[in-house]
């Protein structure tokens, strides 16, 4: 996985750096002191190398922890694995907020649309019932009118 690869690459870098700063090279640069104190030179070089390695590893460890890289890189591995069948280039931010936010808003808009459709349908159903009562009321009133007209004709 990536986390492993990360460590391997850094270790390789460190190895090569240490190799570059070999004792021969060190002794060659400090030739006069090396002639005078060969053992001390050797010991200083050893300490230099181990201290350098230790500091670099500590720094890498700190970076890993700060960024929670172990977990993050493993999750990235998983995401990449899941996307293996995807060949097309995937979506990327365009950098234009309005454009990039659009798709994120769509689910809410669709939900809102569904809610409005439901509400509208309920309201129409409700109005249908009320309209039926209104029509019944109109029928009753025209019936009463007819009865009154009948009585009026009878009176007349």
């Amino acid at each position, binding site marked *: 996985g990536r986390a492993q690869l990360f460590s391997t690459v850094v270790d390789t870098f460190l190895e090569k*750096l240490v190799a570059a700063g070999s004792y021969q090279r060190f002794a060659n640069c*400090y030739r006069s*002191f090396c002639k005078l104190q060969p053992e001390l030179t050797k010991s200083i070089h050893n300490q230099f190398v181990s201290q350098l390695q230790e500091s670099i590893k500590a720094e890498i460890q700190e970076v890993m922890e700060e960024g929670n890289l172990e977990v*993050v890189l493993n999750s990235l591995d998983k995401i*990449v694995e899941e996307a293996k069948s995807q060949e097309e280039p*995937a979506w990327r931010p365009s950098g234009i907020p309005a454009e990039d936010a659009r798709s994120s808003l769509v689910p809410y808009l669709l939900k809102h649309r569904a809610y*409005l459709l439901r509400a509208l349908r309920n309201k129409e159903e409700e109005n249908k019932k009320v309209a039926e009562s209104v029509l019944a*009321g109109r029928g009753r*009133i025209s019936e009463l009118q007819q009865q009154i007209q009948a009585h009026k004709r009878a009176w007349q």
Partner: protein
Amino acid sequence: SVNPMAYEAQFFGFTPQTCMLRVYAAFQDYLFDMMLVVETVILKKLEGLSECGISPLHIRKSTEKFLLFLQENFDELFGKMEEMLLQLVLNIPKNVLLPEDKVHKDYPYSKEQFQALQDEIHQLQEQYKAEVSAGQALRAELEEQKVVQAELEKILQCFVGLENICREHWNCSFRESFAFLTPSLKKLQDKLKDVEEKSK
């Protein structure tokens, strides 16, 4: 052109280049610090060996020579490491969509489609408002009907009431009582006229 690696930044919470820069600076600091320590140790040692004929300046030159060599290697190696890490580790392949961006795959709405959806929602909202006020108008008519119906029933009740009165007191319908009353009224008027003439 520099790849801003914005998508990686979205995922990692930092841009990979920044991360590498930080590591580079840290490594370099360590290297410089170590070399400084090495030189200090050697100089200290030399103090004890005053007749060895090696001057501090000489040691400084040695240090610079070693550091320069290391620096060159360091830069080269770090460059390679950075390239590998940016390509293979701190990189999101082009075909990969992050989970939080799944919406862009599920809802690839173009600007026009998005606008159409917004328009439709607006239209539905307007329609809903119209239905609400239509409902209010219908309920208002129901209230009105109650008043009108009560009024008409009162009038009708009036007719029925009269009928009942007739039936109670005259045991017949109003029509019948009128029919009965009218001829006797006629007779009565005639009689009245007779009486008046005779009295003249």
